[in-house]
């Protein structure tokens, strides 16, 4: 649903780097370069960030819509 707090394999903290990564990649930077600059060295941690999809964004849309309808009622 959201980026896991720690890497599944080694236990290093990765979630605090996700938003910076997502923003920079969205602006057209190369993921490899961004990960290197964020000091994510091992491939276990790199795949955590590289392969993450924030599904909450999709779920939140429904909650937002429900709230809007509740207010209009």
């Amino acid at each position, binding site marked *: 649903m*959201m980026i*896991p*707090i*720690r890497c599944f394999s080694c*236990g290093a*903290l990765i*979630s605090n780097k*996700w938003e910076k990564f997502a923003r920079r990649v969205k602006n057209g930077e190369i993921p490899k370069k961004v990960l290197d600059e964020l000091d994510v060295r091992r491939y276990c941690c790199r795949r955590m960030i590289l392969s993450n999809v924030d599904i909450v964004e999709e779920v*939140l849309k429904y*909650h937002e819509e429900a709230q809007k309808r509740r207010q209009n009622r």
Partner: protein
Amino acid sequence: MEIKILEKDVNHIRFLIKGVETPIVNALRRIMIAEVPTMAIEDVVIIENSSPMKDETLAHRLGLIPLKTDLDSYILPAICSCQSDLGCNKCSVTFTLDAETTDSPRTVYSKELKSDDLEIVPYSGDIPLLKLASGQKVRLEAYAKLGRGTTHAKWQPVSACTYRHSPTVRIDIEKCDLCEKCIKSCTKQILKKENKKIVLVNSDICDLCEECIKSCPTEGIQINKQVYIFKIESVGSLTPERIVIEAVKILNTKLDTIISQVSSFKKEKTV
């Protein structure tokens, strides 16, 4: 024993240990992973949660947050005199989270966790915990306790904690007859002939297969196996130096108990 620090920054340390056997180095490694205590959130009381994230998922996420740990002012719940579920001020720290949003969706970060003790705070304030849609609310209380990696990996102070033999291949110039057999036998090709001498190039990739020793007809090559490079990466709860110091202390107490138990066994036998 000799220790030399090769590299050091906030969360990493790389050092060289000389003159010890593998079992001791490995014992240190295992203690660092499983037995050096750190602090992590253990109990969560959820008062209100209308966010899309389930209570148990949220509690699990809270548990995994690395907390800056003060080992000197807190004790393990197992040895604390209070013996209560949620702990006392000697063995636990209370965190509260009170977050809501009215008009637009937002992310709740770990910096919004308010701690009882200003020394015990999340290592990073930028950890996204959950997302709230407009009109949603989260209120909870969390209790952090000291614990060990053996119980749960959230209490592990290190992420990467490894050691390896340092490649120290020594060539005896007096015994070497420049037959070049060692150069041919080396699987990583780190030996070279330069100015009528065998020299090491790029020795970092040596995997100590000892083929060069076997191939040498004059016993002119030696490898010192009692040199290790130790690499420790802290999760952020303790400084890497502190982790090593604590591990050594734990190893010492373990050895002391062995000595006392063996000596008491001896006495029993003589009686």
